[in-house]
């Protein structure tokens, strides 16, 4: 064996080894086409080496001709493979160049088998042999075939293709790859030009075309191995990061388990649900049981199934967060409340691929909610819970009854629907204020509140407000009492009181010895005297017109006066509506003095009056207050008349008193008559208690009822020297709703 045989054979063996290795690699990774192409290239390179060796040792012209013809086959394989490799692996080189090269080489191969002896030569005349070292090498003496130009053109295009591809890769920034792969290919393609030089006898060296190609193969192998190494490195890194990921997942699962969260992931395409052990326990899945969506569906309580499916469908379609609170029916019949949350992940086509989420056991919370609901339901009053937006979140049966709405018509609607329209805007403002400073208190202090029923009618109500702080925010629980019945009873009481007061007024009028009718006599007398005087003046014929004028104007004024007396009388005897006025107590006293003037005169009693100035107004019914004062004055006159002391005076005094921080206007009537025995001090205010022969014993009891309805007090005290003082007080300020009530 000569050394050339050894080297060329080793070269071929190396190429075949590499081809074998990468063929194996390709078998493992079918999508790695670069590996297969490399294998072809390496096999072709090995074959070229074998042909070269055979040619150098060829003995006859015929054998040489045949070898040259057949060497075109591995060359074709090699060039097509390398071009494809450049396109596929380096993703460089112009496609038209690639196709041109492949096409040209195929033409060359076809022509090679058409021409005799081959494409390269028209004829090999003889073999020239020279010795190179210790070797004898055969070289043909030839007549060149002009079609060989096609082969040369294909080689030239190949060099251009390689240069272009190298530049592209270089520009892409992958300089190492450009240098190693592109450089070796260009170098290899250039080296191929030594073959004609040897044939033409210009240089005497053995053919080493196979080495030029082996260089390319080596560079390709290096590049591919680099990639393999890189992939292996990536795989290691991936493994490491997967380990990290697993640890993170484990930690998360631990946290989820601590929070009693069951984590799950639903692979929608495969319909597989992966779920943590905690999650399995929540839903009652066996530890090794395979879970799919259908298994999940059957776990959900039948009554909640449709609702849960809808929630899932909705998330899948819209991509919205999945959120649902539902019951799970466990094998032992136990019911568990679950709060589920999750979100959908979509694949590149916008199809839902996965859904991930968590499930939480909220049974205890639900039980607490249920208890709260039952307590509210069992409450004797109407209860309505409202959130910060003013929407109703909870009502009980009593609330339905008071407002005549069904529960479904109330929940989720603004509370203003239950407020009469005239109060609505105020209510919204008040509600906001309340949420700013929420504490338990009655609503609308001092005001009358009304609710609006479904049919638009109003119902008088009383409302207590309680703030409730929950994890979902602040709520207000309103406790509502229908006070229609109470109002009716109050109205009835007021009506009876009014009737009683009227009866008492009529009685009092009868008891007034002077009587109001007498008051009419005065103006009537004046009118009569004036009229008759005028008649006389006119009868004489010498009437002074100025005097007649004066008489007439006096008649008119007295007539008005009489009318005023009648009006006062009518007012006094009027039955019915109790009115509430803001009034001055001094005016009431003066009106009473006008009413009883003639009585005082008749009984020869002098009334001294001390009226305090600048008294605040009080609220009440003027006629009823007059009635009280008339009663007190008439009683005082009686006390004076029954007394032997000659001082026939009484004192009416108004003033203001402060007691316990609240102010009240007071009116007192003091007489100089006898005193009241201490044991009868309260008895005198009882109905049917009387000391008078003709009295009914109603006066003072009615007076006390009237004053009480005005939120005032009426009491009596004995004076230090003689006589007694009756005094009543009336609160100053806000109108009293008790007095507002009318009797229809």
């Amino acid at each position, binding site marked *: 064996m000569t050394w050339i045989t050894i080297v060329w054979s080793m070269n071929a063996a190396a190429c075949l080894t590499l081809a074998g290795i990468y063929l194996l690699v390709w078998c493992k990774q079918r999508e790695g086409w670069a590996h297969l192409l490399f294998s072809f290239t390496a096999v072709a390179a090995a074959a070229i080496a074998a042909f070269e060796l055979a040619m150098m040792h060829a003995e006859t012209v015929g054998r040489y001709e045949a070898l040259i013809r057949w060497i075109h086959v591995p060359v074709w394989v090699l060039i097509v493979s390398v071009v494809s490799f450049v396109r596929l692996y380096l993703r460089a080189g112009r496609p038209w160049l690639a196709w041109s090269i492949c096409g040209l080489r195929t033409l060359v191969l076809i022509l090679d088998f058409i021409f005799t002896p081959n494409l390269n030569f028209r004829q090999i005349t003889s073999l020239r042999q020279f010795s190179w070292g210790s070797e004898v090498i055969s070289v043909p003496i030839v007549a060149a075939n002009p079609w060989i130009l096609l082969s040369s053109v294909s080689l030239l295009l190949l060099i251009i293709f390689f240069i272009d591809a190298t530049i592209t890769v270089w520009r892409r920034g992958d300089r190492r790859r450009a240098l190693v792969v592109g450089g070796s290919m260009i170098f290899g393609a250039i080296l191929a030009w030594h073959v004609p030089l040897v044939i033409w006898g210009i240089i005497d060296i053995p053919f080493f075309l196979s080495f030029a190609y082996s260089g390319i193969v080596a560079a390709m192998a290096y590049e591919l191995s680099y990639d393999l190494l890189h992939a292996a490195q990536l795989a290691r890194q991936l493994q490491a990061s997967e380990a990290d990921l697993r640890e993170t997942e484990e930690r998360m699962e631990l946290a989820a388990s601590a929070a009693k969260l069951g984590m799950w992931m639903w692979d929608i395409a495969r319909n597989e649900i992966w779920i943590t052990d905690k999650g399995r326990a929540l839903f009652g899945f066996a530890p090794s049981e395979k879970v799919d969506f259908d298994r999940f569906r059957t776990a959900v309580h039948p009554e909640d199934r449709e609702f849960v499916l809808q929630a899932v469908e909705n998330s899948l379609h819209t991509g919205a967060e999945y959120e649902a609170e539902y019951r799970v029916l466990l094998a032992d019949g136990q019911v568990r409340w679950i709060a589920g949350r999750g979100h959908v992940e979509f694949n590149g086509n916008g199809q839902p691929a996965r859904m991930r989420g968590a499930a939480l056991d909220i049974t205890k919370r639900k039980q607490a909610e249920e208890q709260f609901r039952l307590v509210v339901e069992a409450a004797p009053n109407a209860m309505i819970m409202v959130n910060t937006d003013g929407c109703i979140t909870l009502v009980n049966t009593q609330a339905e009854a008071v407002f005549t709405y069904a529960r479904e018509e109330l929940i989720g609607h603004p509370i203003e629907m239950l407020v009469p329209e005239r109060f609505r805007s105020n209510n919204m403002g008040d509600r906001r204020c309340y949420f700013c400073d929420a504490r338990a208190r009655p609503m609308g202090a001092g005001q009358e509140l009304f609710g609006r029923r479904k049919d638009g009618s109003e119902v008088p109500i009383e409302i207590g407000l309680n703030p409730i702080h929950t994890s979902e925010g602040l709520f207000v629980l309103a406790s509502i009492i229908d006070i229609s019945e109470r109002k009716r009873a109050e109205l009835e009481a007021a009506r009876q009181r009014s009737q009683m007061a009227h009866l008492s007024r009529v009685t009092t009028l009868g008891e007034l010895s*002077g009587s109001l009718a007498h008051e009419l006599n005065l103006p009537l007398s*004046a009118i009569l005297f004036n009229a008759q005087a005028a008649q006389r003046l006119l009868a004489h014929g010498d009437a002074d017109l100025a005097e007649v004028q004066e008489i007439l104007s006096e008649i008119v004024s007295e007539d008005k006066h009489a009318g005023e007396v009648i009006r006062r009388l009518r007012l006094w005897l009027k039955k019915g509506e109790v009115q509430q006025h803001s009034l001055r107590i001094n005016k009431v006293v003066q009106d009473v003095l006008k009413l009883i003037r003639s009585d005082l005169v008749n009984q020869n009693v002098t009334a001294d009056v001390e009226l305090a100035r600048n008294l605040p107004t009080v609220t009440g019914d003027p006629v009823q207050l007059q009635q009280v004062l008339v009663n007190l004055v008439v009683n005082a006159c009686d006390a004076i008349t029954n007394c032997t002391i000659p001082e026939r005076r009484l004192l009416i005094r108004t003033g203001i008193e402060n007691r316990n921080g609240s102010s009240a206007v007071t009116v007192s009537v003091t007489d100089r008559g006898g005193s009241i025995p201490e044991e009868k001090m309260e008895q005198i205010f009882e109905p049917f208690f009387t000391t008078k022969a003709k009295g009914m014993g109603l006066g003072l009891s009615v007076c006390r009822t009237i004053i009480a309805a005005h939120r005032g007090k009426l009491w009596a005290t004995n004076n230090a020297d003689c006589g007694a003082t009756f005094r009543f007080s009336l609160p100053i300020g806000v109108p009293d709703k008790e007095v507002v009530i009318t009797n229809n």
Partner: protein
Amino acid sequence: MTTPPSPTVFVVDDYAPVRSSISRLLRAAGFAVAAFGSPQEFLAQYDPRIPGCLVLDLDMPAVNGFELQRILAKKGSLLPIIFLTGHGDIPKSVRAMKHGASDFLTKPVNDEDLLAAIRVAIEKDRALRRGQTNLTEIRARLATLTPREREVLEHVVTGKLNKQIAGDLGTVEQTVKVHRARVMDKLKVQSVAELVRLTERCGITGR
């Protein structure tokens, strides 16, 4: 002696419209009228020498009609009073008449009734004043008696004899006779019967 003043109707009523309308009516009927708003006002200005009558409202504050009637009687006034009242009743009218009221009318009163009552009252006043004039003269004659003569007079009107009187006074019958003659002379009476009638009118009682 000056001519006596013409009769005046005094009106006392606290209610101004009634006061002024009565005044107007009476003036139209030809009377002189003096009106007062209260008894006090009337008492302050009243001149008892003026003849006439008083139309008095019964119901007035402070001093009422009855009280004014009492005050006037106390003063010895003989002015006839016609009471006018808004609410007259029998007890009140009885009380008024008992104390010498001329009439008791209830408001509103017809003009003729009122004027008639006033005319009667004025006539009564005139008669009273005439009697009053005689009495004044007698009183003037009585005033001329000495204390001893007055003593004797008081004994004579009891119907005692001169001897008895002398015994009572501690003197002699002759002295009593002289005093008696002088009393008869001074009082211008002719008989004891006349003397007795005269002393009765003056309110002198025997002892």
